């Protein structure tokens, strides 16, 4: 089958996502990168499901999509509040938990 191709795509997406999460300073872009990571997982799930001939993978992918929607909703609300309070969404400036 063609499983490997999907896995490679998924791994590439995942790496891009991780890079974005770790390197971008803009909170919105970090949120988008998290979406990339989640979608990499979705691709994995659907591909594995199709490979094994079950629908479980698709079902889980749907769950992940729903959860991701909720997550991004909360995430954007947080970002909005941070922006209102600090007039900036640069993650490097949000370090109130510094020891």
């Amino acid at each position: 089958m063609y499983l490997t191709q999907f896995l490679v795509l998924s791994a590439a997406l995942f790496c891009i996502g991780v890079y974005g999460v770790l390197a971008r300073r803009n909170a919105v872009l970090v949120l988008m990168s998290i979406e990339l990571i989640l979608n990499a997982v979705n691709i994995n799930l659907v591909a594995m499901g199709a490979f094994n001939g079950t629908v479980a993978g698709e079902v889980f992918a749907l769950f992940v999509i729903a959860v991701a929607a909720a997550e991004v909703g909360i995430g954007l609300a947080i970002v909005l509040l941070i922006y209102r309070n600090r007039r900036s969404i640069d993650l490097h400036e949000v370090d109130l938990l510094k020891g």
Partner: protein
Amino acid sequence: MTSALASLFAVESGTAIYQTSGWFLENVWLVPFIPAMSFLIILFFGKKLPNGGAPIGIAMVGVAFVLSVLTAGQWISQVNYADSHKSEAAHCESLEYDASKVSHGDDHSGDDHSGDDHGDDDHGDDDHGDESGLGLYEGEQALAPVFAVEAGDGDGGAPCPVIKSYTWWSSGGHDITVGTMVDGLTVTLLVVVTLVSLLVNIYSTDYVAGDRRYTHFFAFLSLFTAAMLFYVVSESVIQMIVGWELVGVCSFTLIGHWWEDQDNSDAALKAFLTNRVGDIGLLIGMIMLFFAAGQTSSVFQINAAATAGAIPQTTLLIASLCLLAAVMSKSGQFILHTWLPDAMAGPTPVSALIHAATMVVAGIYMIARLYGVFFNGLSIGGSSINALALIGAVTCLFGAMLAFVQDDIKKVLAYSTISQLGYMALALGVGAWTAAIFHLMTHAFFKACLFLGAGSVAHSVHSFDMKKDMGGMRKFMPHTYRTFLIGSLALMGLPPLAGFWSKDEILAGTGGWGVAGGTGGNGAYTFALVMGIMAAMMTAAYMTRVIYLTFFGEFRHVPHGDDHGHAAQADAHDAHGDSHEDHAAHEDHAAHDPHESGPRIVIPLYILAFLAIVSGFLNFPKGFQLVPKGLQTRFEHFVEPRAAAEYFPSISHAAPSWTLAIAATGLVLLGAGLSWFYYFRLVPNQELAHDATPEMIVRSRTELVNGPTSKFSALKGGHTALVNKYYLDHIYDKGEPVETSGAGIMASLYGLAAGLGLGITLDNGLDLSLNTALISGVGAGVTVFAIVFAALKSGTGIASFTKRQLAEAADWSNKHLLDGVVDNVGKGAVRAADVVYKIDQGVVDGAVNAAGRASSGAGGGLRRLQTGKVQQYATYMFAAAAVLAGILIVFN
């Protein structure tokens, strides 16, 4: 109330036959439900309702009170019915803990009641005869029994608790149930909680009048009442946890009611966090019991299994120790009691409701509710010391000592509460179950009376500081004075007031010194008796001090404008909810003479004072010749579950002892007398300089009313330790942020745990009893605790502190006691102290400082990792995940 009382005294005739069970017993869910509704109504519509929704709260809590009294009446009928039907053999619940029993959830429940919560059940149309008694398998059992029959000839049949149980949710074959369980203990708490809550609601309409969050306050009073009632009627341990936490949350919101003030919000947080420490124990303990009793969360079945010996003793021991940690935090037992005095930052009605009468007794209630577990787990029936009795005894003594050095009237009462809670724990620890619950009830009444009385005084003088702003109040507030005096006498335990009966029962229940005959089930806890009597004596002394400082002497309050005034005013925020906004108006107001509070404050005070007098008559001791036999031990008869009901251990009752009662009363009088002599005779006779300025007068008056501890150097060490509250707060936080306080608490707990482990190890090696292991564990724990303390105080460690006191004491004895020989002894002592000092400076301080520097250095190093940058944390996380993935690949 009248019907309840009527049937209360018409017993043992054997003629009265009532219907089995009753509507109120089965529908007791209404009692927590109504205040919960009140909460929602006030919260959402309160601002639009007349008087900010307060009448709704009063009315609904009032309805809950009426329902509670009716429930109590029906329970009394239930007991009478069981008494009059001794011959019919029945069991509350069979005790077969085999597999088929454990899996009952699959067969019975879930088909017609799954998904029901107790709010919308539909049993109103069922046949009552069928579902009375044990409703665990509702509709399935042909005839559920309402009572079980005792083998011997005790009190007759044992009434079964009325249980209604529904499946809340199922998970993996485990049913979690929710429902109500009513027996004597439940109805006692229902009546006490609703009554005190009702009075506090009425009182509050005056006390917090004009407060900016008036509506919010009443909403949370209702929620608190509902949470406590929900907890009290719990059928399952999971439900108990929910109620327990709800009570904690309400406490948090109410302590922090005036959160604009940093102190108040800190106090609320402290109460919440300290309770979290114990909640871990609660969770672990409950989970252990859930599995140990065959995967059932039913309180009844857990108790039954523990009583029948179906659970190994070691399991019970560990579970009850975990639960004990929760009790220590919730019920203010030493060493986790420190949140309770701070919680006095809340409004006074809250203090009365939560921190005297109801919330803090949640822990005591849990022990009483799961007494089968604690009784067998801690081997209470044996005659050796157990952890519960020890903690209770230490708490009642140490709490009473702390009450001496407080200037804040509410804090005295707070420490007094701690001390009284210690009595209850002690009573449960020695097997005097009824005495504990009886004391819980009487204490709720007289302590609520005292708190509300203190609030009434503070409402008038806008301060809680007895030394600066009170004195001579009896002239201004005669009603408050009378009720406060009655409450104090009841607290001291002077006959015939309520406190006397319950306290005496606890002391007798210890069975110490063989005074009370040391009956089998109660062991012979002489140490508990000694500590209890000492605490009683001290209680009398510090309450005399409070009465003098508050109501006698001269009125010491001076109008604001000098520095004293401002200091006093900082404390006054409680008494005057709106004082944050208009200080000017406040000072204006404070310049007037104090005045008696209005009827909405005074009437609840009188009701509580009345109860503080008469509630003790509910349980005259057995063989008390002055009352007819039908009036003796009524409380015990109706409240204490009997062994035949199969969920309660078989305990025997200590015989009451005239000797002990007279001796204890004599010592109480002695304590009060000494205190009276000091404050009422010595202090007023000291002279004031004639040409004193107002400031000097204030200062000298303040000094005049200081106790002996601040006058004699030998006593000063003890005084300092008490003022610093045994340095527990220094360990817990010492002005540093949460992580240090958490570390302190955890360190001391780990110390205790390590000590426990050490004790058990010793136990295995030396073949001692498990209780001995416990004691050595506690001892070792205290040692570790002291080391942690020394490390945290690094530098000015405990050793040098003690040494200075030693030297001062030696010096004092040189000058005042004897010359000659004693002089040399004194010099020797100083020399010895010098040697100790050198060792201290060189070795002890060195080690302590090194420990301090090491932890400080480690902290400093680790601090740099905490950059606060989320992405850096994420990098650590991903790197760790990558490393783990690598390891997985390599080793696969």
